[in-house]
């Protein structure tokens, strides 16, 4: 009799299931890697490149064609220049077809003419360099202007090779040196941490407060719950601009109100003064995201079994004691998960600060710094370097996060 042995490896059924699973996942994996993994890799690549916004268009020769002079002097003129000021383009060639009605009399030395085809090998074009090619032509009569238009209508074909900064193997550490240089980086990091820590904690505390308010059921509870979610559901751009207008130093209602109430003597520039601007963007963050914490905490609260409170009542616990020794420990799990997730998300936040202050007045966080470096200073490499730093921080945070979430599985 043969011994019964457990099957080794995956059986055909299991293999088929795994194949189906990968088949179902393939589209997702494909697009996610196309739009997430590839950009992430490219941002690492770019962060080591000396590249500015202008370098996105590689240097190339540019030409202007015109028909000039008349009679003996009639000529086709090609004026070339290098689109880049400092990078040479090598092996420039120019090809064009003469329009009907024009015949070549004499051409530039560098050009070959066969019938109506012109081909010129022009060699190299220095950075910012210019060149000119003239071809003397004759006309069999006819309107010169119209012929000129006809000639210009067929654009000449240009070729030329230039080093493409994005793809060559020129690396530099200058970007990282630049962003870590001086106090600026530490200032930005400090601002980011202030914004992230206080924004997260504030949103959690306010969310907890709001959840405690709505944990009792009464008429209108649903309406209030919907109302308290408004800040989160509305488009960020709409509420950010509303805040800007509300707190405008010259014509904002908040200032008018404070002046009339006698709280302040002079109008306050809420989004323009250090360190008030940073506090204001943090307050905005709390205002906008307390609904989310509120929703989660409320959901968790409502699932705390009622008999625990009854037992506490029997033991004579006071309301504060019930909150402190019963509700809070029950909520600790969701609070810690929310804290970590919100911490990561606040750290990643870009839109809010960008819209409110544009990163001015001491509110430049790391994410705003990416935009600032890449587009305002036009140094894409430095922007990418900041992005790499952000990504590094993110990895550290998510390591923490996965530790906690596997403990608190089920959110």
């Amino acid at each position, binding site marked *: 009799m043969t011994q019964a042995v457990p099957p080794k490896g995956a059986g055909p059924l299991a293999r088929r299931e795994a194949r189906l699973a990968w088949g179902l996942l393939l589209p997702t994996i494909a697009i996610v890697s196309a739009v997430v993994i590839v950009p992430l890799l490219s941002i690492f690549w770019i962060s080591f490149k000396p590249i500015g916004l202008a370098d996105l268009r590689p240097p190339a020769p540019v030409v202007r064609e015109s028909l000039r002079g008349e009679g003996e002097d009639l000529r086709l003129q090609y004026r070339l220049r290098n689109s880049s000021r400092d990078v040479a383009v090598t092996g420039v060639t120019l090809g064009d077809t003469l329009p009907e009605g024009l015949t070549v009399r004499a051409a530039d030395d560098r050009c070959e003419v066969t019938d109506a085809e012109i081909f010129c090998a022009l060699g190299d074009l220095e950075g910012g360099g210019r060149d000119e090619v003239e071809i003397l032509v004759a006309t069999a009569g006819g309107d010169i202007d119209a012929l000129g238009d006809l000639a210009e209508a067929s654009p000449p074909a240009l070729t030329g090779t230039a080093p493409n900064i994005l793809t060559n193997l020129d690396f530099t550490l200058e970007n990282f040196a630049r962003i870590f240089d001086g106090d600026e980086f530490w200032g930005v990091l400090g601002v980011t941490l202030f914004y992230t820590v206080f924004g997260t904690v504030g949103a959690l505390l306010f969310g907890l407060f709001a959840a405690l308010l709505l944990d009792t059921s009464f008429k209108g509870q649903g309406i209030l719950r919907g109302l308290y979610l408004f800040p989160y*559901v509305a488009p960020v751009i709409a*509420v950010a601009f509303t805040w800007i207008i509300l707190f405008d130093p010259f014509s904002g209602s908040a200032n008018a109100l404070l002046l009339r109430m006698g709280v302040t003597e002079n109008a306050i520039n809420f989004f323009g003064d250090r360190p008030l601007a940073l506090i204001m963007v943090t307050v905005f963050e709390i205002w906008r995201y307390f609904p989310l914490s509120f929703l989660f905490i409320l959901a968790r609260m409502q699932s705390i079994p009622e008999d625990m409170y009854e037992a506490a009542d029997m033991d004579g616990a006071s309301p504060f004691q019930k909150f402190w020794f019963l509700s809070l420990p029950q909520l600790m799990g969701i609070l810690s998960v929310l804290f970590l997730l919100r911490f990561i998300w606040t750290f*990643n936040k870009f839109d809010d600060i960008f819209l409110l202050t544009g990163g001015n007045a001491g509110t430049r966080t790391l994410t705003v710094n990416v935009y600032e470096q890449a587009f305002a200073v036009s140094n894409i490499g430095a922007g990418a370097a900041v992005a790499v730093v952000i990504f590094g921080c993110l990895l550290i945070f998510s390591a923490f996060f996965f530790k906690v979430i596997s403990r608190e599985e089920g959110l």
Partner: protein
Amino acid sequence: MFHHGQVTGAILGALWTFVVAVTVAVAMSFLSGEAFRPSGLSSLILGAALGVATLFGTGAAAAAAVVLVGIGIVGVGPVRGGDVALVWAVVAHGVLALGAATGLRVMMRGLPTGRLTRHEFEAAVIRFLTGFGYVFFTAIVVIPFYVMVMTSLKNQQQLVQNPLDFSLDLSRGWAIFDSYVELMTVFDFGSYLWTSFYVSVLTVLLTLAFSIPGAYAVARLRFRGAATFSRSILLIYMVPMIVLALPIYIGYSMVGLRNSVLGIVLIYPVTTVPVALYMLQGYFRGLPAEVEEAGLMDGLSRLQVIWKITLPLSLPALASVSLYVFMIAWNEFLLAFMLLDDPSKFTLTRGIASLNSSEIPRQHLMAGSVIATVPIMAIFLGLERFMTRGLTAGSVKG
């Protein structure tokens, strides 16, 4: 020492009256445009008295409230009106006295004069905090939206004249909607609305098309790497958009997808697929596997099971996910801002961003904001049940 009826009553009375005074002053200023301000000192003194009075029953509270109205009209009440019209003053003082007295009466319910037990004291404090919380949260949520709507209904002159005045000037008739008319005609907001709408709908459809099979595979099928996969999805969900936006901008510039709606429609679903996948797999796991196995036994293939059993069972979850994704796409700003330059292709958020210049009056900016906010709010309020579920399941995207 605090555990004494009169002391608790006085302190809570003072605090609550001050809260009501500030609320009334702000609300009346916004409603009437007149200058109302709270007075800290008389709020504290009169409030303390009112608080003690409410301890002695409803009659005493009512009497104290009437006295409070009188003191207010004389001009030394918790809310000071300056030289405002008498009607407004009476309304302000009346509302203040009513709010302070009824609020305190509720807080002091069952509180004895004299010594308090710990439970009585804490219950009163909690009732005060609850009252304060309702006023506070409602105020901070309502005021910005109120300002947004009312600013959009004004004209430049009114705004400069009195930034506090948010009353509606009905004598202007339909002209109060001038900003909206101008946005629709001159600034082409109709087409932005349409672009935003179809971009969002396409995003929802594409997201579902990609995430349903993926989520099903992660939730139901056994294969090596399932756990890793679902973790990396969560990780991708946390990559900041600005980090991706930069290479996407570069890539789009090179292949010529920048400045095209197609580019936007291609990129939005990718930002939402991870979250949708995460939400859906959670839901699919919760469905009873037996139903599907019964389907398999009856000879359906896996794909047929998904189509005929799983999807119909998860319609509510699909609704939640769709709404959530729609909201993300509708509110998306960063990518639209970076990738679109041509006004004819703007989405709504990009269109509003283009209104933010010193030449365009700010009531237009606010009208644009209202146009973007109203549809999403309408959907939200109409389908709140799904939306809240979507928000909690979709966890915590910023």
